[in-house]
Structures are given as structure tokens and as C-alpha cells.
């Protein structure tokens, strides 16, 4: 048996193996988050509602663990995510601050009126400048900040029930937020259609952003 005879077969199998591994690597559209482990950037923005034009800054996000959720009415994935945010708001004692990203304020207010408002308050970013400051490159994106205002985690794409269970709830628990281990049964309404199955990768959330 001559070994040279099998060289093409071995080469082929190696290529096959490399492809098998390569295509299982993480979604190339997903950027590693540069801000994780760093302080949330300083900023100045107006509120979507109320506030009388007073500027909100980084210091307003400090004091307790906070979710900063970047959303817009033009973003269909945000609509799907909205149900999950409402559920989190109802079940976990965590602040949720919204950043209304490159949106029409009137539409945004109507959205909150029609679909419910999970946010403590919303900031407006009409031209995406705040988004650039935060390293946002699409919506939805969500930052988890600790009480000192450091970015603990960043979710690119929608927060789904599985993202909550696997990524957010454990980190919030570590930050001292009372999060029940098996968070609240999902209500049997239309929002169930939006939830990802636990085993499904979240890559599908990114495509439609």
C-alpha cells in the first residue's frame, strides 16, 4: 500500500474538518464589545418625555444595576424584544433606561403608549451621535451596567427569554439583584411567538436588525 495514494483523501478530509470548524465559529456580524469591563461613556442627552429639556448624563445611571436598551420604532426586532423588556420590568427589580435611537419622538411616544413602557425613562438620540459614543452599530443593543456605571455585559440583538435566563439573570444575581432562579412563567399571549427556543442560537436576532 503506497501512502501517496491516500494523500488527496487526507488533504480532502483536513479541508472538510477546517470547514466544519470554521462555519461553526461565532457569527462574523457580531462584534466583540469594546466597552465591556470599562466605564459607560460620559454623555449628555435629553429625555424623550418630561424632564423640561434638562440634560441627562452618565451620573443619572449610577447607583444600582441598570439595563440600557437601545431601541427604535423602525426596528422590528425591537418590537419583539419589547415584550421581554416588559416582562423583565414586571419581574425583576432592575432599572431599564431606554435610548431611543435615530427615531421620530412622536412615533416613539406612541409606541410606548400602545405597547407599554418598560423604561424608567428614555433618552433621545436623534442623529445617532450618542450611539457612536456608546459604540452602537444597530438596534436593539443592551448594556448591563453595575451600580458604579461599568459595562458588565452587552447584548447585540434582541433580549429574548433565553438571553435573559443565560446571560442577564445570572449577572444581575451576581450584582446583588433579587432575580428568581426560574424567572416567571411566560404569559400565554402573542409574545410567546417571539421567544427563541432555549437551544436556538441568537444569531437569528441580528439579521433583521
Amino acid at each position, binding site marked *: 500500500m503506497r501512502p501517496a495514494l491516500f494523500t488527496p483523501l487526507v488533504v480532502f478530509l483536513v479541508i472538510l474538518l477546517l470547514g466544519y470548524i470554521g462555519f461553526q465559529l461565532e457569527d*462574523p456580524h457580531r462584534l466583540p464589545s469594546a466597552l465591556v469591563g470599562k466605564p459607560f461613556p460620559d454623555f449628555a442627552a435629553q429625555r424623550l418625555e418630561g424632564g423640561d429639556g434638562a440634560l441627562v448624563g452618565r451620573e443619572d445611571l449610577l447607583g444600582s444595576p441598570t439595563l440600557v436598551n437601545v431601541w427604535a420604532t423602525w426596528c422590528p426586532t425591537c418590537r419583539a424584544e419589547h415584550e421581554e423588556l416588559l416582562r423583565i420590568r414586571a419581574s425583576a427589580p432592575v432599572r431599564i433606561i431606554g435610548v431611543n435611537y435615530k427615531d421620530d419622538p412622536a412615533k416613539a411616544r406612541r409606541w410606548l403608549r400602545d405597547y407599554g413602557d418598560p423604561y424608567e425613562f428614555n433618552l433621545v438620540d436623534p442623529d445617532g451621535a450618542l450611539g457612536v459614543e456608546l459604540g452602537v452599530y444597530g438596534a436593539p443593543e443592551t448594556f448591563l451596567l453595575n451600580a458604579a456605571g461599568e459595562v458588565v455585559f452587552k447584548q447585540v440583538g434582541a433580549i429574548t427569554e433565553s438571553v435573559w435566563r443565560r446571560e442577564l439573570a445570572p449577572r444581575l444575581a451576581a450584582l446583588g439583584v433579587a432575580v428568581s432562579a426560574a424567572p416567571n412563567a411566560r404569559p400565554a399571549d402573542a409574545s410567546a411567538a417571539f421567544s427563541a427556543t432555549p437551544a436556538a442560537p441568537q444569531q437569528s436576532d441580528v439579521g433583521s436588525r
Partner: protein
Amino acid sequence: MVKQQRVKGVCARPALWLLLLGAGLAAGASPVDVYDFPDAATEARYRALVAELRCPKCLNTNLAGSDAPIAQDLRAAVHRLIIQEGLADQQVRDYLQARYGDFILYDPPVTGATLFLWAGPILFAGIGLGLIAVRMRRQQRARLSDADQAQLRRILDEA
């Protein structure tokens, strides 16, 4: 793209065709936005930066060549940083790298994860050179010695 489609209707007139094509090429560098610059040097700096930096949304397009909304925002940010805030080129790169990570630089740093990327070509070149060396040595060994050559010639001459 839009300009080239418009061009199709006037193919009968080559001069006009060329003119429009030229205009399309000139506009191609920065597709939509128009910015003011205090001088040509600053404009050149801006153009170099948006050509060098990578659009975070589009994997393999620079900021200059992308129509993605985030690329437009980042072009505006680069313009603002060098004109209004007077940052140097390296400061602009650092600013964006701090927010969007190494991805935006088109220049992966040497880390554990990218080591293969950097060392791979050298590794493969080494393997290739090694293979060539082995083959050459084998060929040399396969060559007949002087005594064998002489014997071969004798046999051939006898035939």
C-alpha cells in the same frame, strides 16, 4: 449605482456617457454626504481616515464605501472629531477603537486568538520549504553514483 443606471439611457452619445461616468466615479468615494473643510489638507486627512476605517456593519467595506446608516454616522463622527474637536489621526482611531473594538481598524493585533492569522503564512511557508528540502535530498540520494554511471555506460555500449 444610481448614476450608472441613469447612464444607460444615453448610450448613444459617448461624450455624455463618459462625462456621467466620470462624475459617478468622482462621487463614488463618498456616496451621499457633503462636508465642508477649512482646507485641502484637512479634507485629505478625512478622506484617508474614512478610507482606512472599517464599517462595523458590513464586514468588508470601509467607511468611505458604505451606504449603511452606521457608516454615515461614523463619517459624521470622524468629520466632527477632526474639524470641531481638532483630534489628530491617531486620536480618531483610538476614539473609534475604544468604542467599536479592533474590528474597525482592519488591523488585528497579535493576541492568542489571532496568532494563527499572523503566524499561519510563516508556518505554511516553513512547511513548504521543508517539503522541498526533503524531496531534493531524496532525489539526490536516488541519483546514481559515479561507479554506477560508469557501469551503466559500459552495459549500454555493449548492447
